[in-house]
């Protein structure tokens, strides 16, 4: 379909801007493995300190890149499937808020005023521009939902009574509704705890409450990253794998999105298993819900595999009776038409398989004691958000860039190889980080100048091999990214060869059931929000009333002396605590 020029430019900007930032994010990822293994034995390189680089790596890759690309994908999906124009004023507002907020936070990070990592745990405090920037990014990302997608969705429903909305719209819509629900706790944390402390309006903060509010957002957000990738797995992958493939079941896909809507929220405490201040049974309940949220991912694994099998067997009759031989017919590396995208999906799926298993280990309550805050954890999420999610986003970004600008994809060969290098590198990285984690290798630590430095009294030789292996893995991943970037920027900078024409390959459903209970979203949204609230009331009681004795003043990362003045009230509270 033809896309209005203003909207086209906005969409292209929403793809190119986060990717330019991603280049910095990935550079700091490479620096991480070099520092940690002791290849660089220093506190900083090129004026950027280790923990500053780690903050940039986390915030850019996991928050900025994902959020803006998801907004772009949502805009494209709503525009294409509902065939209703997006409103330029709304899109401009969203873009300005997102980019402005990002630049604000980027200024704080690049100038070293926000070395707080992407979890920004207080009492470590960043410059207020960091928090305000993040808040503006979030607000900007929500604007299109309320002023573009929702009205278009309602209008489409009215014009097509009794019909199901297209699956991709359904998925992106549910995902963004989840986003609105999950940002509530983190916005409360930023507006009522962090910003006032950072601006000096208050002198103390309750760190346990802040952590609980953060993780009430921080785990659901991984599903916000994941679901757009699932949408593409359901709609694009089955179609392009043979050119005429089908999605095995439309109903199962919709059920998956609803299950995520319900189960994504009562799970955040599984990040806080080791924390004092929260009663164990509440943590256990969240652990069990986390196992529940694995179910829709397992249904997805089934549906995607079944769609691939059905599509391949329909195209190649000789594989009809095979159990596994059909797998050999998947075009893992192919330059034909849109099939180059298959490599992004397949490499991502193989990584996500590992990510799912390690994720269940993390969530498994008592087992978490072995791996909490060790390198096992980054090992895990580099195969999920750094695996399937990033690969699908990179693949789709390149695809939509070419569509929206009318430019042929350049260096397609590199673009096809990129995800496989990424896959291989990430698999080795995950192995090295996971096994080192079992031996207690900490995450988020500049180990190169202490634990992995033979001259340091803290030297721990048992971690050296794994850290060195992760350097090798990191280099492979970066080579993969460079391949992709050559293709992406090569395409961007080449002249347009045809008229811009947006086309999303879409698989029809093989089983297409009505499932009326899944078509009305409002009751599910209400139920999900209530479950979220109920699941957090006991934990919030614990961290405000029961398990916390007093609040803490703010600190910066350079100095063990508080930067805000603790009030004398602290003494009163101490005494009260004694009386209890």
């Amino acid at each position, binding site marked *: 379909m033809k896309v209005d020029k203003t909207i086209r430019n906005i969409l292209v900007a929403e793809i190119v801007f986060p990717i330019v930032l991603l280049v910095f994010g990935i550079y700091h990822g490479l620096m991480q493995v070099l520092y940690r293994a002791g290849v660089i034995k220093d*506190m900083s390189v090129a004026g950027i*300190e280790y*923990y500053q680089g780690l903050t940039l790596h986390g915030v850019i890759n996991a928050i900025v890149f994902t959020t803006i690309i998801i907004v772009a994908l949502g805009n494209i999906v709503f525009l294409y499937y509902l065939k209703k124009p997006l409103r330029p004023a709304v899109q401009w507002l969203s873009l300005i808020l997102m980019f402005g907020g990002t630049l604000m936070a980027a200024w704080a990070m690049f100038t070293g005023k926000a*070395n707080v990592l992407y979890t920004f*745990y207080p*009492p*470590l405090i960043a410059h207020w521009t960091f928090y305000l920037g993040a808040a503006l990014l979030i607000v900007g990302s929500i604007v299109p939902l309320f002023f573009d997608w929702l009205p278009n969705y309602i209008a489409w429903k009215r014009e097509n009574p009794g019909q199901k909305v297209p699956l991709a719209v359904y998925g992106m819509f549910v995902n963004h509704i989840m986003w609105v629900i999950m940002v509530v706790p983190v916005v409360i944390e930023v507006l009522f705890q962090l910003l006032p402390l950072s601006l000096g309006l208050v002198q103390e903060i*309750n*760190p*346990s409450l802040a952590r609980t509010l953060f993780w009430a957002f921080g785990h659901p957000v991984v599903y916000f990253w994941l679901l757009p990738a699932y949408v593409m797995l359901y709609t694009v992958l089955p179609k392009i794998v043979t050119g005429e493939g089908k999605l*095995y*079941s439309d109903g*199962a896909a919709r059920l998956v999105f609803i299950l995520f809507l319900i189960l994504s929220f009562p799970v955040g405490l599984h990040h806080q*298993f*080791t*924390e*004092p201040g929260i009663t*164990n049974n509440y*943590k*256990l309940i969240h652990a*069990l819900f986390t*196992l*529940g949220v*694995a*179910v829709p991912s*397992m*249904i997805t694994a*089934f549906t995607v595999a*079944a769609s691939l099998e059905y599509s391949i067997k329909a195209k190649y009759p000789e594989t009809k009776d095979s159990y596994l031989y059909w797998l050999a017919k998947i075009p893992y590396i192919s330059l034909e038409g849109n099939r180059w995208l298959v490599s992004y999906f397949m490499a991502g799926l193989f990584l996500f398989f590992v990510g799912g298993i390690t994720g269940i280990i993390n969530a*498994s*309550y*008592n087992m978490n*004691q*072995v791996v*909490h805050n*060790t390198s096992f954890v980054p090992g895990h999420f580099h195969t999920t958000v750094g695996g399937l999610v990033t690969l699908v986003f990179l693949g789709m970004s390149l695809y939509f860039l070419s569509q929206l600008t009318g430019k042929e994809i350049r260096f397609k060969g590199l673009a096809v190889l990129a995800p496989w290098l990424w896959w291989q590198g990430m698999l080795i990285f995950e192995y090295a980080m996971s096994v080192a984690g079992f*031996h*207690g290798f*900490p995450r*988020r*630590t*500049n*180990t190169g*100048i*202490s*634990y992995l430095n033979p001259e340091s009294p*803290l030297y*721990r030789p048992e971690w050296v091999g794994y850290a060195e292996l992760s350097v090798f893995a990191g280099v492979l991943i970066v080579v993969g990214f460079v391949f992709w970037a050559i293709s992406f920027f090569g395409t961007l900078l080449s002249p347009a060869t045809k008229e811009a024409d947006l086309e999303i390959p879409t698989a029809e459903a093989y089983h297409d059931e009505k499932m009326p209970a899944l078509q009305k979203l409002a009751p599910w949204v209400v139920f999900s929000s209530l479950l979220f609230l109920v699941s957090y009331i006991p934990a919030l009681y614990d961290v405000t009333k*029961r*398990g916390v*004795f*007093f609040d*803490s003043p703010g*600190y*910066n*990362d*350079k100095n*063990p002396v*508080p930067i805000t003045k603790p009030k004398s009230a602290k003494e009163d509270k*101490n005494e009260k605590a004694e009386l209890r």
Partner: protein
Amino acid sequence: MDRAEKTALTLAVALMAFFAGLIVYAAKALNIDVPTCITDVKPFTEGKVIQHAPNRYELHYLAKMWYFEPAEVEIPAGSVVDIYLTSGDVIHGFQIDNTNVNLMAVPGTVAYARYKFDKPGVYHIVCHEYCGIGHQDMAAKIVVK
């Protein structure tokens, strides 16, 4: 939903229910539990080694930017140790190598774990939560003789 889908869904739910059962069994029957909510110990402002009996110790760990107090503790093999941990400033982490003792030090709260040190040797403790520029040097040890 066709038969294959129903089977897949049932298997997925059954597998997760099985895992859930194992976790609950380990937590409730075998008492392999996570650190609990402590409401009867006030956060302390100095580290301490308290010996209650020849093989019975209480360690009060204070985590501060960027050291643990006490930095080194010597105990005899076979000691049962109650570990209390708090923070004097920001969030810190606390993991004793080769054990399941894995705690967070959060200001205003006290974390607790009990461990029996059977094997002699040096047990390294690292801070595993980012706590500022000196984080990588924040370590301690328990020497079991």
